[in-house]
C-alpha cells in the first residue's frame, strides 16, 4: 500500500446464501479524499460499506486498511432499545468519555443544545447529526457515512454536505459515503463510484453524471428535470432547517 492510501479493496465479491450481492469491485480511498458510492436500491452499497469497515468478510478479493486506521462510522439506521434511558451526551460518551471534545464536536455539528435530551425523542434529522457528531469523536482518519442525509429536507441536505466538506478540510479526514442521489452530493465529492452489484462507472462526479452506464441506471430525464428546476435562495438555512437572517422567499428558475 502506498503511504497516501487508507483503504484498498481488490476484486471484491460477496455471496450470501447463494445470492451474489457484489462482484468484482475495486475500491481505493486516499487520505483527505471524499468518495461517494451511488447506486439504486439493492445495489449493494451498504454491503460495500460493511466490507470497508471490516464488519463483513468478502467471499472473494481482499480489503487492505492502512495500519492503525481510525474509523468513525455513521450507520444508516439506529434501532435503539426503546426502553433504555439514554441521553444524547451519554450516547456520545460511549465512544469517548472526554467531555471537552464531546461538547466541541456537538457544537460543530449543531447538536450541542440536544445533549441532555433522550435519544429516543430526537427527530430523524437530529439523530443523523448526533450520529455524525459521535463518529467524529474518535478523531477518525476516515469517516464512513451510510446515507448521511436521509430524513433531512433538501436545504438541510446541502447544508450537511457542506459541513462534511468542511470537516474534511479542517480535520484532514477522508470520507466514504453512500448516497442515492448524485446531484446534491456532486459538489461535495471528489470521486464517485456508481455500483449496481458490479462497478458501473467511477470517476469525477461530472464525468459520472454523463456516463452512459450512469444514465442507464438513473435515466437522462432525471438529470434534465433537476437541471431545469434550479432553486435559488435569498436566505440561508442552518442545520435545523430554520431560516437564518432572511427577508424574502424563493425564486424558481
Amino acid at each position, binding site marked *: 500500500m502506498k503511504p497516501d492510501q487508507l483503504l484498498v479493496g481488490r476484486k471484491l465479491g460477496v455471496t450470501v446464501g447463494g445470492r451474489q450481492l457484489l462482484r468484482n469491485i475495486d475500491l481505493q480511498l486516499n487520505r483527505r479524499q471524499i468518495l461517494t458510492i451511488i447506486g439504486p436500491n439493492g445495489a449493494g452499497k451498504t454491503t460495500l460499506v460493511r466490507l470497508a*469497515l471490516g464488519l463483513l468478510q468478502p467471499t472473494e478479493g481482499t480489503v487492505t486498511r492502512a495500519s492503525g486506521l481510525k474509523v*468513525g*462510522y455513521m450507520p444508516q439506521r439506529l434501532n435503539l*432499545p426503546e*426502553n433504555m*434511558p439514554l*441521553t444524547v451526551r451519554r450516547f456520545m460518551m460511549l465512544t469517548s468519555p472526554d467531555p471537552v471534545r464531546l461538547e466541541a464536536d456537538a457544537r460543530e455539528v449543531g447538536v450541542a443544545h440536544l445533549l441532555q435530551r433522550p435519544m429516543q425523542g430526537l427527530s430523524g434529522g437530529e439523530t443523523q447529526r448526533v450520529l455524525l457528531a459521535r463518529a467524529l469523536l474518535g478523531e477518525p482518519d476516515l469517516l464512513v457515512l451510510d446515507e448521511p442525509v436521509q430524513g433531512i429536507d433538501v436545504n438541510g441536505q446541502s447544508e450537511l454536505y457542506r459541513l462534511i466538506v468542511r470537516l474534511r478540510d479542517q480535520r484532514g479526514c477522508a470520507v466514504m459515503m453512500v448516497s442515492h442521489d448524485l446531484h446534491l452530493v456532486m459538489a461535495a465529492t471528489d470521486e464517485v463510484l456508481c455500483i449496481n452489484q458490479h462497478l458501473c462507472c467511477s470517476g469525477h462526479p461530472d464525468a459520472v453524471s454523463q456516463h452512459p452506464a450512469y444514465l442507464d441506471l438513473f435515466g437522462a430525464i432525471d438529470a434534465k428535470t433537476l437541471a431545469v428546476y434550479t432553486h435559488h435562495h435569498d436566505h440561508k438555512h442552518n442545520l435545523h432547517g430554520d431560516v437564518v437572517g432572511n427577508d424574502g422567499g424563493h425564486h424558481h428558475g
Partner: protein
Amino acid sequence: MDDFLLRALAAGLGLTLISGPLGVFVVWLRMAYFGDTLAHSALLGIALGLLLEVDLQLSVLVLAVLIAVALLGLQRRSGLATDTLLGILAHGALAIGLVAISFRDDVRVDLLAYLFGDILAVGTRDVLWIWGGALLSLSALMRIWRPLLNLSVHAELAAVDGVRVARIKLAFMLLVALVIAVAMKLVGVLLITALLIIPAAAAQRFSRSPEQMALFATLIGAAAVVAGLLASLWLDTPAGPSIVTAATLLFLLGQLHRRH
C-alpha cells in the same frame, strides 16, 4: 422472626443484587425468551444430574452453559431465526429431560419445587453460595459494562469502536446462565425470567441513565422479595409466586407514575 425466613430474605436479596443489573440488559437486548429457554433446559440438567449422580446445581449450570453455546453455534450456522432456535432448544431440552427422568423409576422429582422453587427451604450454605455467586457475577458484569452497553445500543457501531461483540455477548449469556442456575432453586423455572424482566421493566419509568435503571431494578426486585415473603408468611401463599406477584404489582403501580 424465624430463621428460615431470614435465610429466605438473605437469599432473595442476594439474588436481586445481580438479577437487577443483568435483567436490564436482558430487556434491552430483547433476550427474555433466551432466559425462558435456559430455565426450561434446567429440567434436563436435573435429569442428567440424577442419572450421573452429580451435584444438581452443577449439572443445571453446565447444561445452561451448553445451551447458550449451542444457541450461538446454531445462530451462525442454521440460518434460522433466533426465536425459532430458542423454541427448538427450550422444548427439546424440556422433553428430553422428562424422558430421561422416566428412566429412573426410583427417583421421584418434585416437579412443583422445580417449577416454583423453594426459597423457604434454603440453608445457610445456600445463602453463602448465592451471595458469593451474585457478587462474583456482579463484578464480572461491571467489567464488561461499557462494551456490553455499547453493543446493546448498536452492535455494528460498537464493533467499529473496537468492541469484540461476539466475545462480550458470550460472556453476557454465560452470566445469565449462571444466574438462572442459581435462581432456579429459589424461585423455580417458571418465575426466573419474571424476576429478571419485571423489575427491569418497572425501573425504566423512573430512570434517566442506564446505570440508574440497573440500580432501580435491584431496589424494586428487593422490595418484591421482602413483600412477597411477608405475604407468603401472613397469607400462607407459595413464596416464589408471591415474590413475582409483588414484582408485578410494583410494575403496575409504576405505570401510574408520570414519566419525566
